[in-house]
């Protein structure tokens, strides 16, 4: 019975909160560029502690009236005055901060996108305990000294690959006494690409039957052939760090053998019944190939990415995998 009631109240509460957020969003629109958190969009409500405090003060008022005790009145009125004043202090501490939204670097599905928000305090008073709550529900707080900037993060959990919009986040503060919480909703317009989550194992049997024939062991350290001068674009893993450490100029290792040609990863080689699994396995291959410092290319149907190596190339491949099939 009580559980059912609590569930009912909980659902209503969530619905009400959602409605409030939608209303706030309609009211203030999207946030782009430099956003000043104007007083109009800072909302404030007492916390549970604040309500307890109000009850405390009320009981004290009853006691003071009952005993008609002047100094007890003084204490009670002090508490009431503190409560009212602190409401304004809490609101003031948050209002008029300026926010700038940074991006988030891509992550694999299942990881958290970390959005950066810069908080500027243009005023000549320090602001304390300014907290940002991302869609993961974790509050992260920071102090922003007068005329300074602080960096906050909003973490956003991801589930699937693709281009995702930045979730709205909540900036809030309970400073100084925690009796009230002032908050504002931020609706940033950032977006980021979430890569497919790499499969646990790569299906090596299907691996890249490129031009030089099948090779499930594409490169071995034993195939080391010698050194040549470094050329821009050479993978970090191929750089001969030993020689560099000896004070020599930058060299790249050259590997000989059948695996030395570029690898091709093709969606067509994967199991067509589960496209998501296929993309996930391709991701694993790309990640592994990148780690090994290989040169590889990617074919996703009509889309072809020519073989290359390096972080930029890897990100290009992963981005392509992430948005594959996405009409956007």
């Amino acid at each position, binding site marked *: 019975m009580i559980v059912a009631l609590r569930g009912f109240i909980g659902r209503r509460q969530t619905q009400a909160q959602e409605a409030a957020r939608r209303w706030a969003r309609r009211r203030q629109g999207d946030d782009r560029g430099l956003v000043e958190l104007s007083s109009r969009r800072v909302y404030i409500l007492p916390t549970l502690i604040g309500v307890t405090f109000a009850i405390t003060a009320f009981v004290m008022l009853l006691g003071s009236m009952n*005993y*008609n005790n002047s100094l007890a009145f003084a204490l009670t009125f002090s508490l009431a*005055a*503190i409560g009212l004043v602190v409401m304004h202090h809490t609101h*003031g501490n948050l209002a008029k901060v300026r926010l700038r939204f940074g991006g988030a670097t891509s992550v694999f599905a299942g990881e958290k996108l970390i959005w950066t928000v810069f908080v500027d305090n243009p005023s000549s008073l320090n602001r*304390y305990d300014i907290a940002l709550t991302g869609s993961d529900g974790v509050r992260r707080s920071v102090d922003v000294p007068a005329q300074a900037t602080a960096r906050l993060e909003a973490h956003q959990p991801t589930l699937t690959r693709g281009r995702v919009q930045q979730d709205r986040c909540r900036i809030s503060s*309970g400073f100084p006494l*925690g009796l009230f919480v002032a908050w504002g909703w931020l609706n940033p317009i950032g977006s980021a690409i979430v890569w497919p989550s790499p499969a646990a194992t790569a299906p090596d049997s299907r691996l890249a039957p490129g031009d030089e024939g099948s090779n499930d062991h594409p490169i071995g350290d034993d195939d080391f052939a010698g050194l040549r001068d470094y050329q821009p674009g050479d993978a970090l893993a191929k750089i001969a760090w030993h020689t560099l450490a000896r004070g020599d100029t930058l060299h790249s290792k050259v590997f000989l053998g059948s695996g030395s040609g570029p690898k091709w990863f093709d969606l067509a080689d994967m199991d067509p019944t589960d496209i998501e699994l296929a993309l996930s396995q391709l991701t694993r291959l790309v990640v592994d190939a990148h780690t090994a410092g290989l040169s590889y290319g990617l074919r996703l149907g009509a889309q072809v990415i020519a073989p290359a190596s390096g972080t930029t190339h890897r990100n290009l491949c992963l981005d392509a995998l992430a948005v594959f099939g996405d009409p956007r």
Partner: protein
Amino acid sequence: MKWLRGKATSGELETPLVWATTALAVCFAPHVLHFPFWITAATVAAGVWRFTAERRRWHLPPLWLRALLVFAALLGVLALYAGINGVVPGTALLALMAALKILESNQRRDLHVVLFIALFLALSSLLREQALWSLPYLAIALFACLVAWQQVAREGNPLPVSTVTHGASRIARHAAPLLIAFWILFPRVPGAFWAVPTQGEGASTGISDRIEPGSIAALIASDAVAFRVEFTGALPPLREMYWRGPVMEAVVGRAWQVSDFPPMNRRDNEVSYDGQPYRYRMTLQPTGQRWLFGLDVPETWNHPNAKMSPTQQLMVRQPIDQRVVMELRSYTEFTIGGELSARTRKRLTYLPGGSNPKTRELATTLRDASTDEDDFVRQVLALFANGDFVYTLEPPPLGLNSMDEFLFATRAGFCEHYASAFATLMRAGGVPARLIGGYQGGEINPLGDYLIVRQSDAHAWVEIWAQERGWVRIDPTAAVSSVRLESGLDAALRSSGQAGVGRWLDFDWLTQAGFTWDALNARWDEWVLGYGPETQQRFMRWLGMDDPHWEKLAMALGIATALILAAIALRLARQYAKPRADEARRVFERVIRRLKVSLAPHETAPVAADKIGARYPTLEAEAARFVERYQAIRYAGDDSIDTLRREATALITAARSAPATVTTPH
């Protein structure tokens, strides 16, 4: 052994814990002397243990242990006070709960609760005592709580001490105007909602409802103020100042006491007034008794709950545990007449059978020897005046037949001895008599122009029912020591060769200091502690509000609160806004504009000085000084912006009358 351990500690609460316990200690301090030692010890132990636990990362006590401790605390308080109702046991329980809350605190929320309990402890210390130092104490306690509170509510690393003290004083500064508005305007209502439990030990002070040999002498040693009186207009002479209190008509054993059930249908209470009325305002200290005092006999009074009893006592329904401020009008010339019914006469001539046989015999002898009642009274008074009776503060103790012993053996006594002996003799002689308790005289404080009546002015006198005249006051003490009434107790004791009670200090400056201190206390009592419904009404009328009932007050309070909050919001909005463009720059630009000097964007401030000098040759030196200061402020961190403003104004004013050279366009 999981059941042996409670929640783990993380060390994060260390700073908030220290602050919260400090605030609790400040709020606890006034109780230390009133609590048994073990309560203080338990609280201190809890604080120290909890702090060490946080330091050493010990586990907190498990639930069963905490439940056991709560039970033990409850039991301890019950054993100590035989109940948990009332302020004193409630406070003791509160203190122990604070200790237990500290013990189990493992979240910031718990420490908030500790602070709330601390505030309750501060409140209950005010219920017990409201001295002059209570207000500064309250301010300190609140400040300590505010500082601790910020640390408890803090999410990040603990703030530096200077930051939290600044924060607390900022909150206090902003809250002060609101507090004053609330204090003055919050509608005060008379009376209590629920019966106030008496405040434990020694609740009632001053004259009690029962007088027996020695009971007033015990009061005399006290210098405490009973009430203060401020007369508007003439003061009655000191010897006519009888402050009427309880009227004792019942004799029980050795004692005279107020009848539990005074018969209401009496007709011996028709008062007629004569002579001039005296108007005065009285600030009565709480007595814990149900009667008020008034100059014998009050005609009107403005206490809402006070009623005149058939025996001319001003009675209230509930014991007086707060200061009472009221205005009265009294006549010192009056008659209380009417008719004494046979039943009442019988009651008022009653003496316990078998007691004081010698006294009764003496009364009969005297009554038989006298021609009428008046003569009887005269003879008894003459007995006191001539019978080598001594007026002393330390009379020898008396036994069961106290009046016999006093009249025939010891012959040394204080006012209650003489009063009760006189009344007993009267009753034994067939004259209805009753004992009145109260105060006699007082001390004028020249600094405050009011009368201080202390416990040491406690007095007892007698009223007898005289045919034709009704109730007549007779003060037998006057027959023994008339000095007592003329110039007070101290002089009376000195004239009888005894040491005074020490109130009349020999040093003038000490007397002066004493008067100053009392004048301060009087203002405090009247305007702060006595600020109740009556004082509020008076103050509001003085401010110009006619008919200040609670709706008007509530409205005024609402308006004042809104205005103050708006001012605070405005101030905060300005403080938290981006500062306006550099103030010095604005002043500088105003001077350039008003002196009609054109300055190109690439031209520096010294160029402006040169240009001003060229345009107004007489102002050259002034302009150079102004520009120098401007640069010092902008680039060298000088902060004499006000001087810069003054100089700018001077420059602009001077330029108006200075000869200007007309610059020709190139």
